[in-house]
């Protein structure tokens, strides 16, 4: 069995639906200089299979982005080899950045002052976010 040692300081993003680990990495950590371990298809009692990401010396993580990728994700914050905080992702009711408005005519695509902002309209199978600028619905499939 594959074994990866624990981290001394950093975060462990756990319970990622199998196959979505790479997506989490690409969205949030592709530019990091810190050490990252991405574990895929790990056996899980709860999920059957899951992905896990461990990142050293990083403590900030955008929980909104994790929430739209997979609301079942948990984040363990480790300091000096001890679990100091456990966070649970949730589908965000509002979102600043993170998504691009799907309306090509929206001001957020052309003006740096206009950071995309969204309000959750529906979360039935797919996430529907309304752009606060153009009011167009952007759909994010869970």
């Amino acid at each position: 069995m594959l074994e990866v040692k624990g981290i001394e300081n950093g975060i462990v993003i756990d319970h990622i639906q199998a196959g979505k680990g790479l997506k989490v990495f690409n969205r949030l950590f592709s530019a990091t200089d810190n050490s990252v371990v991405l574990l895929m298809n790990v056996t899980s009692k709860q999920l059957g299979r899951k992905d896990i990401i461990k990142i050293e010396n990083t403590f900030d993580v955008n929980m909104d982005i994790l929430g739209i990728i997979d609301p079942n994700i948990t984040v363990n914050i480790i300091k000096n080899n001890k679990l100091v905080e456990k966070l649970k992702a949730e589908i965000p009711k509002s979102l600043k950045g993170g998504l691009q408005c799907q309306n090509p005519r929206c001001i957020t695509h052309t003006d740096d002052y206009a950071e995309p902002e969204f309000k959750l309209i529906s979360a039935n199978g797919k996430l529907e976010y309304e752009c606060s600028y153009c009011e167009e619905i952007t759909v994010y499939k869970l």
Partner: protein
Amino acid sequence: MRHLIEPEDLTIDEINRLVEVGLDMYNNPKVYNKICDGKILASLFFEPSTRTKFSFDSAMMRLGGNVIGFADASTSSTSKGESLADTIKVMGAYADIIVMRHPKEGAPKLASQYSRLPIINGGDGGHQHPTQTLTDLITIKRFKETVNGHNVAFCGDLKYGRTVHSLIRTLARFGNTKFILISPDELKLPSALKRQLINQYGVELVEVTSMEDVIDDIDILYMTRIQKERFFNEEDYLKLKNSYKLTREKLKNAKPDMIVMHPLPRVNEIGYDVDDDKRAVYFEQAEMGVYVRMALISMMLEVGPYARS
């Protein structure tokens, strides 16, 4: 300080008062011709417009105020790469109120976040056009006496037509419970808006593809142009542009007191032979736009009938 970005920025009571004040300005223009003396309207049109720009200019002048601005983004610093926020901040020192039209949807909202002057949205892409809605409402009030209780049909481009989206939502807020939607399948009212109308306001929507099937049941027929600038490809536009045309012949089956409205400009969706029919009120509609915009400028500058005592 307040802005008008979408019709929902105004309460029903405020809209009713704007319509009443606008009608009084129409009937008694001399009473109001100095109430904006010394005030300046910045008219920032990043996209071409005839009616909206000139009706705002005319409205401000009829109130005794002055107008500065541009009618084309290429004659402003935008063409040098200036951001919208910077343009708006600079205009804050030059004027008392801003009306802007912009091709990008949401641009007036962004502008309002950086403005120290009241912003009026004169149209942002296919999104909102609140002063057209006020124009439509004052026209309905003038010709049908009440805003409520009419069988209203919208015809043509219901997908991209921002005037339709704004008006139908506002009429629903006023308590209208049924709308007839006449359009080809490709240009139907967006489903998100339909869902909002049904869930939030409980309205009944009747969707048809033929005007002839419903024309005898309509009190207010709101025609729209198939807008070339909203299409990404010429082929789709050409396919749909001749979808609906109102003619004198078709009007034979309409009620004698029906009114035909159109936000203008028209291309060929209303035949010229309809213009002489007393039910055609679209030129009066454009005229009423001046008076309701006069009322709006007065409200936002708190002058004349809106002056604080």
